[in-house]
């Protein structure tokens, strides 16, 4: 028995098509090359549910999606065409806002969800501090919780947690690395 065999492409594509037609494609995913390394994109039927940098470990992220959403996970690029196109345009500096259905099912806790819901209101090319976001969300003391919400953002880039920085000019941590955060902010303010 050889072990290097793979399923023929036409059979995989047919499985994806049939699964989608019968409502069995709970999580579709693909990867996308970017200036910050390969990105994993995943979507439920409701919308884009996950964007992950390579640093998070794509296999680990897929295992987490299987555990927390559904194990019916398939590599199915079709559902992610629009998301991949908009991310490409954004990363090339040709798009300032995303127009995609989002599924925030992976946001844990009402406050983190509230923070994530507010982030798209931070305009392209501008930043807010963690403290300001906490105040905007009506909990000025919850600065640390805002940091956690950003650090666990399931949709980085699309939900712009990179626009939230420290009071006093520090960048703050970023899922994609501080270098990526600095580069994104530089691109947006160019």
């Amino acid at each position, binding site marked *: *028995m*050889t072990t290097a*065999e*793979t*399923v*023929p492409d*036409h*059979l*995989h594509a*047919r*499985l994806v098509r*049939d*699964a989608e037609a*019968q409502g*069995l494609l709970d*999580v579709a*995913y693909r990867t996308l090359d970017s200036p910050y390394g390969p990105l994993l994109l995943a979507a439920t039927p409701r919308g884009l549910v996950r964007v992950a940098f390579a640093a998070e470990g794509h296999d680990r992220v*897929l*295992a987490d*999606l*299987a*555990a927390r959403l*559904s*194990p*019916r*996970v*398939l*590599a199915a690029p079709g559902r992610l065409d629009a998301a991949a196109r908009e991310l490409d345009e954004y990363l090339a500096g040709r798009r300032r806002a995303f127009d995609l259905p989002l599924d925030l099912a992976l946001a844990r806790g009402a406050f983190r969800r509230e923070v994530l819901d507010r982030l798209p209101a931070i305009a392209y090319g501008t930043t807010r501090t963690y403290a300001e976001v906490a105040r905007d969300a009506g909990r000025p003391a919850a600065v640390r919780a805002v940091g956690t919400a950003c650090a666990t953002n399931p949709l980085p880039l699309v939900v712009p947690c990179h626009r939230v920085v420290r009071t006093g000019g520090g960048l703050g941590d970023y899922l994609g690395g501080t270098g990526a955060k600095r580069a994104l902010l530089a691109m947006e303010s160019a």
Partner: protein
Amino acid sequence: MVPFEQVVREHGPHVLRVCRAVVGPDAADDVWSEAFLSALRAYPSLPEGSDVRAWLVTIARRRGVDALRARARRAVPVADLPERGVLDDLPELDLYAALAALPPKQRACVAHHHLAGLPHAEVAALVGGSPEAARRAAADGVAALRRSLL
């Protein structure tokens, strides 16, 4: 529970080999597709710790039997046998035609053990009977193949 994509990658080629052995290369794609779609539907309720490969082979075999029954019902006579199947490690032998000529139990045991690599005990669980009977059927099948091919 691992993502289903990983199940397809790890076991898909093996199950395709079983499908080809059971129904021949032409119908194998349909049987494989139906089997994996059924498996995807049932996957979330598969008990933890199950032998995923044996489970998939069982589903594929059931689908294969359905396909063979449907084919028998149609019973359209054909002038020529289908093109010779391509099995990479036995390119010179008309293996599918020879397999198809075996009695069903021998064919199933040869396919599951020699082509799909299942131990006789698992083959017995799939086709019924004891492991020893499965071993004997596989051995008889191979002997018959040897006679017809060599």
